[in-house]
């Protein structure tokens, strides 16, 4: 209960910060808008969805940290993951189309609030990857806001490279780990 309260509080704080900053779109990487058409690192083919367990809408997915603590494999909810290139936080065309679908779901479920998790693959430095994951979560959030989702419904957290979904050392696996994940925050139970 305390943890849940903290999560909500954290969301509120995040909203507070973003309101103050005016939610400027992050664009410190050169030309993120054209990155998908002329990338330095070409986007890999997205791994088959079969790698991820099929989703039942009724499943209540928890945060990646909760699932790690409980020893459960990551469960996907109705919102699909968005994938990134190595050391990139710009949104590729496929990522934008996934985010549009996620925005549609959020519009159909106006009470839902979500926490966006930024993740990285295992390569590179942990602290840098925490920052990179934060950028990815923020990029996903900013795009959802431009699609009309209220910023108050969206909070972010980065887990860097710390909670991979795929543990093998190959590009297909790394690709699955470089993701933004969307977790529906359980509404606060009335007490």
């Amino acid at each position, binding site marked *: 209960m305390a*943890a849940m309260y*903290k*999560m909500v509080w*954290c969301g509120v*704080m*995040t909203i*507070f*910060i*973003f309101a103050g*900053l005016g*939610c*400027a779109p*992050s664009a*410190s*990487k*050169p030309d993120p808008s054209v990155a998908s058409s002329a990338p330095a690192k070409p986007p890999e083919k997205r791994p088959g969805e079969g790698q991820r367990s099929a989703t039942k809408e009724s499943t209540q997915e928890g*945060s990646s*940290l909760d699932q*790690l*603590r409980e*020893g459960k494999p990551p469960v996907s909810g109705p919102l699909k993951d968005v994938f990134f290139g190595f*050391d990139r936080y710009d949104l590729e065309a496929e990522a934008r189309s996934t985010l549009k679908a996620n925005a549609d779901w959020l519009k159909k479920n106006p009470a839902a609030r979500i926490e966006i998790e930024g993740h990285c693959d295992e*390569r*590179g*430095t*942990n*602290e*840098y990857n*925490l*920052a*990179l994951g*934060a*950028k990815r*979560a*923020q*990029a996903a*959030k900013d795009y959802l806001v431009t699609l009309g989702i209220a910023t108050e419904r969206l909070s*972010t*957290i*980065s*887990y860097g490279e*710390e*909670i991979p979904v795929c543990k093998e*050392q190959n590009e297909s696996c790394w690709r699955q780990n470089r993701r933004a994940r969307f977790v529906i925050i359980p509404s606060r139970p009335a007490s």
Partner: protein
Amino acid sequence: MMVKFVFAILWLVMQPWLVHAQPKGETGVRGEIVGQGGLKFPIAVSPLKNLGTGADAARLSEGIADTIVYDLDLSGWFKVVDRAAYIENPQKSGVTLGSFDFKDWSTIGAEGLVKGGFTIQGDDVAVELRLFDVFQSKERVGKRYVGRVKDYRRIAHKFADEIINQFTGVPGIFNTRIAYVSTSGGRFKEIHVAHLDGSEKFQLTSNRTINLSPSWTSDGKSVLYTSYKDRNSSLYLFELYSGKEVKFAPRNGRYLGGKISPDGQFIAATVETGGNSNIILLDRNGNLIRSLTENAGIEVSPSWSPDGRQLAFVSDRTGSPQVYVLDVASQKARRITYSGNYNTSPEWSPRGDRIAYTGRVGSRFAIFTISVDGGEPRKLTAESADSEDPTWSPDGRFIAFSSNRAGKYHLYLMQANGENQRRLTGSGGDDTKPSWSPRLE
């Protein structure tokens, strides 16, 4: 190379026993024992003699010798003569000058010799250790230590440090510890602490979440680390002897990492707000003093210069992560690395002259060092595997790092020029992000 070679020969043969060549505390090093090929200094380490009647003597006799052998071997500067070749019986011959025959040692090729004895009383032990010059039939240094029997390895480490001091004018770094992140307990990342030889290992955190980026305070008494144990990443300062812990969390955003300044008065912390990471300066109690970087990008991984006036850090302000150096007073930053498009985790050498970092080469990661003035980086590890997370020994002569060259990530040690790479850990999990302590008492 030739100059170095000749110097090494001179150092080792002509005047190998230059005692206290310089006052302690100076950062410069008079001589290197260049351990290449046949140049390693041949030394014998005799099992210690039981001078008393205490039990458990065999463990100490060989245990102390084994620890000294491990340390000397790890340094890469010595060739320890195999114990099987030793002629004399350590329990029968003496341990002081004149009470044994140097010929027993010169015959088997030893030019240096370590002998010693111990007396056990209850839980305590008194140990005397001596280093002899076999060539000149002289004693170079003798030390007497008193401690708990269970701490005998520390006594051995201290004397190994003294041996290095006799050769180079700067004590060794074997009486130190490494804090690191390990998944050896399962799927969680916990902070562990151990001596270089893996002894006295213990788990500093056991909160079953993610704990990262340990670093030591300069008194060696506390470890600062990043943890998700309260859901959001925050900094925690853990005092080893008391078990007391202080949490630092920013008013806005989250801490991703931090380092205590050399004088212990400040913390350089990475704070993330709204997706942007920047470096800020805190006082020891976690109060904000001021921001050090203010960019809408990634600014992470501060590492203090030994004088506390500058910080190395990583910024992606040009589009790729590169190492920069920031003057704390003026907040002016200058870029150091220009090769490659991924250079992270800078660590400033305790000698002050170089910065070690992780750089991407092709699809692999390698350890580099570069002058604090920039220039050509020096690659120290091969790109047949990934090597990351360099940390300097307190004397700046060694670098520990993590590498997956044997499958999982383990900790490794090498000389600061990349030679003599050795594996340190072999837990069942991944061991990463080592941080080398200062010298211990």
